[in-house]
């Protein structure tokens, strides 16, 4: 845990996401040492071309994932508010995944441990590359917890269905089955 870090949140603007998935690459390089999209703590879903939805932990105020963990493997970082996984304790039961309103956590492809965004200790790599490229789909906001956060913890396909209508009008209703 990093006590020195300040409270931050990764704000997301889905319509601004280009689908470059450089967030996935930067995240996995940081956490895994190499490019590994499916081991990235942020994953970009694309249920239909043009509808790209970055999917990552929203740090709900009531942390249902932490509540659900039967072995206390999850905790929140008192500095950043990120959910921290104790990989030694994790028993890969999937309770956190089921408890999450957006099904954000997943089991790591290598060791099956719960995998959740840790905000890189306060300097998220995904945001760094996204803003470097000028997309600003992911940006840092320096604000404390908000009730809105949980609304971002949502199935990405549902989010994409809304985006579809915004972008394609009536046709948007038909592009995701």
């Amino acid at each position, binding site marked *: 845990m990093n006590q020195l870090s300040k409270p931050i949140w990764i704000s997301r603007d889905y*319509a*601004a996401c*280009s*689908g*470059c*998935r*450089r967030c996935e*690459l930067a995240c*996995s*390089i940081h956490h*895994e*040492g*190499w*490019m*590994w*999209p*499916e*081991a990235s703590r942020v*994953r*970009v*879903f*694309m*249920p*239909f*071309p*043009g509808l790209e939805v970055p*999917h990552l932990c929203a740090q709900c105020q009531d942390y249902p994932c932490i509540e659900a963990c039967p072995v206390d493997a999850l905790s929140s970082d008192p500095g950043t508010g990120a959910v921290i996984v104790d990989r030694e304790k994790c028993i890969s039961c*999937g309770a956190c*995944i089921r408890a999450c309103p957006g*099904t*954000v*956590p*997943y*089991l790591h*492809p290598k060791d*099956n441990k719960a995998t959740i965004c840790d905000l890189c200790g306060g300097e998220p790599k995904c945001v760094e*590359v996204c803003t*470097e*490229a*000028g*997309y600003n789909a992911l940006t840092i906001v320096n604000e404390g917890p908000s009730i809105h956060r949980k609304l971002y913890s949502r*199935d*990405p396909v549902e989010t994409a269905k809304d985006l579809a209508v915004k*972008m*394609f*009008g*009536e*046709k948007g209703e*038909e*592009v*995701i*089955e």
Partner: protein
Amino acid sequence: MTPGGYAGKWLDIDLTKNKIEEVTYSDKMLRQYFGGRGLAAKILWDKIGDKWSELDPLAPENPFMVFTGPMTGIYPGTRICVSGKSPASMGTVGSTAATELANEMRQAGYDGVTFTGKADKPVYLMITDDGAELVDASHLWGLDGEKTLIKLNKEVTEELKKRKPNVGLWKEPGMIYIGPAGENLVRNAAVMAKLCHACGYGGYGSLMGSKNIKAVVAKGRGSLPKVDAPEAAKLLWRRTHEHLIARSNMRRVGTGYAGYSVGAETSSEPVRNWQEEWHDEKSYGGPMFETRFWVKKKWADFNCTTNCMKVSCIQTGPWKGDITDMPDYELQAYCGTNFGIFDPEANIHLSALVDQLGHSGINGPNTAAFAVELHQRGILTDKDFGFTPKWGDAMTFDKILRMMAVREKIGDVLAEGTYQAAHIIAKMKGKKPEDLLKYAVHVKGIEIGAHGTRSDADYTHDISYAASVQGGDHTSVAVDGYTDMSAAVFTDSAVFCNFTYYGVPQSLVFDFAKAITGFDINLQNWRGETGPRIVTLQRALLMMGGPELKWEPVKDDDNPPRFYEPLPSGPYKGKTTDREVVDTKLQAYFETLGWDKRGIPTKETLKKLDLADLEKNMAKLR
């Protein structure tokens, strides 16, 4: 040990026997041919060999290949390369498109797939971390691109979830697929991806269709392949993106503003089947597309910050709900100006239509415009079409493109591509083929991209197409037999996008290639040896050709007759491609590559490039 950058396994699939095998290729082969276009040509030659000239490209024996390269997914701009003996040119083309299929396949542990044989019913290939399997695709056969994509996304994601329900949400797979054009063996049909991305050149959509393959999908949860020097590769990755991000105008407008400027400035945009190459139609300017239709202004594929694509959607009227990319310049030209259409909305509709039908947006529409010129010249009649075709009329081309895709009326003939259709129609109408070929804008069976050579003001010149081993392919033009070796020949073999290449120093790219593979690879040895090896092999296979088409050296190493007609309008009025320059440069091109005066690789060259096994066949051509 597998060299860096390769997953290290390829799939060999015999569709007739329903047999799937994993194969590997030697280090030497990977060093000599790298991946994608190069490696595919080598494997094709190894598999087909002396029977090349007898093999019908749509016969079950012709391999259909879906390849990545060692840099795919790692170097910015993911892309897949498909190949096989080309139904359009009878040689080989490395035909690429941006799709996450490429990196997903590598994440699942495979560098590529080679299909041979023919499935007894429509199938798709599903690749996962647990291997590959053929799945019944009867329910998808006949569907257009959009419906295929929507159904496959859902079906495959659900299947993955069923198999591993506890790991969390499954992301959609990457995929390529064909539309009705590919299914109905339209000779220049595309292999499609992501609604509006296409492996367009080469006619591989028909090859896929001939084997009853509707789609290839992959989902891999592994990492991208490990590389030789990971720390260097990570640094170079950041550095490359810095260069791409600095290309502000390309990122801002893509090629979507060229529909006006190429016509008005460089006078090299096809108009009404290339009868003109100039227009100053301001209603066709970039802002007219952007302001009304672009719903996403920065659209990228995996690991790309060039984001040259922009999503377009028509929100009102009879074409409401048509979705495509910008359209990019090529389709602005081929589904717009070359039809005599200067209306952005009609252009978007026709571009979306070719995507849905699975036509190649350049090649299919080239044939459609050719047909309308034949009508203009009185060679084809209203009766052939079932209506009166008119330049500038969107419904004319809407109808022709659909007729081609389902092979209806004259569409059945046009489905053979511009060159072959010219021959068939000549026979139908009792004309000499030359009477029609003067309107056929192709080189060696491959319809030419939307950049003319007459004004000499664009990037395409005299021998750009005439000397290219991929004919009319505007992405792989011939220059001097040296500098062009490190352009598309390289990117199509390393398999990443041209538009994440230009704008990045070539030395940086080759350092990246070395960091990934560990091979002794640099700009000089690629230009002097590896590139020429690939191109010489492609040239040999192209000139072997057959069975129904054989290209004549020098005579067919030329531009279409139209490119020697004086431009009738615009700032370059009266100008034509200079035949003397073409002849001189062609000989220089041959000489640089160690080919004889007819462009047949010499015995010494073959030996030098470790292609001595071509000698017997080349001796016959000399």
